[in-house]
């Protein structure tokens, strides 16, 4: 009889340890990336400054890098030069888009006038497109392939090496070989 009690208590302890292991093994604030391999939510948004409407559907056939940012976000400002560099490196193979997150058009316009941006910056009214993408904070960058499938996402400011690696994965092995030449 006693061994049954011991066994039951051991099992209960093992279950508790398993739960604790699972709980402590992950960051409770980390938002899961659910849209990997899923079709990117479509959008048609006005570009800052020009007012031109940019639609994701019209970009089918070209890989897209979509960066969510805002002027009040320090890491976004820190990341800005890297995005400029990435555009110069890969802009002929990938379409770069910025999406202003939870900020006013005036703030964004003033910042871009000062810092510059070689690619379109989209105004996302009330950040509804950002919620469609599952954005939890900025900066966040999404890598969408030519078929409109979300391949990857990066949370936080990216450095050049990280950017280059992800772009190569997005472009596939043949393009990576081209870039490597």
């Amino acid at each position: 009889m006693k061994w049954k009690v011991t066994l039951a208590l051991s099992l209960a302890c093992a279950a508790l340890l398993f739960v604790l292991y699972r709980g402590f093994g992950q960051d409770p604030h980390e938002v899961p990336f659910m849209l990997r391999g899923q079709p990117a939510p479509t959008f048609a948004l006005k570009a800052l400054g020009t007012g031109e409407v940019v639609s994701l559907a019209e970009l089918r056939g070209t890989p897209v890098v979509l960066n969510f940012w805002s002027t009040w976000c320090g890491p976004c400002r820190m990341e800005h030069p890297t995005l400029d560099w990435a555009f110069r490196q890969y802009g002929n193979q990938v379409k770069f888009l910025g999406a202003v997150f939870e900020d006013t058009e005036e703030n964004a316009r003033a910042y871009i006038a000062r810092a510059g941006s070689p690619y379109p910056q989209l105004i996302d009214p009330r950040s509804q497109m950002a919620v469609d993408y599952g954005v939890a904070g900025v900066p966040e960058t999404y890598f969408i392939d030519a078929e409109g499938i979300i391949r990857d996402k990066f949370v936080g400011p990216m450095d050049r090496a990280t950017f280059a690696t992800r772009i190569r994965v997005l472009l596939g092995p043949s393009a990576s070989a081209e870039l490597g030449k």
Partner: protein
Amino acid sequence: MNALLISLFLSASALTGAYAPQQAGSSPLEPALEARVQKLGKELRCPTCQGMSIADSPASVARAQLDKIRGLISDGKTDDEVRAYFVARYGEWILLSPKAAGFNWLVWLGPALLLVVGFAVIFRQIQRHPLEKKSASPASAADEPVERELQPSASTTPEDDYLKLVRSELKR
């Protein structure tokens, strides 16, 4: 001191523009629909806060998510469809109460199960007969009062030298 630090931080934030400008949310829906919006908002976790729902959070992203719920409900989506929309983007992490399914049952039933086991152990201990306790643990005899031990009984043999010694010591 804390008040001073917070004031300095807020002042610095205001000067450097390191804050999300307050933006107006979408207009509330008609009362019955808005009640659904708020109820669903209470079920969803704010991504930038500590254990707070998007209905209670002052964060800008929470406001954007609440606006999205309004949009979905206006489009005629059911509550389950709204939940599914958020789970598809943020995972079950977004639900403040995890779904009662699969491994999650452990979270739901675990506390109740522990309570039941605890009561069962207490009940069993209460129900145990004192004599059974005594026979179950001979070592507990040492805790009995000395006077009871000194009473002659069948269990104490006349040859018990230790008891003889104790009696003689007590008689002094």
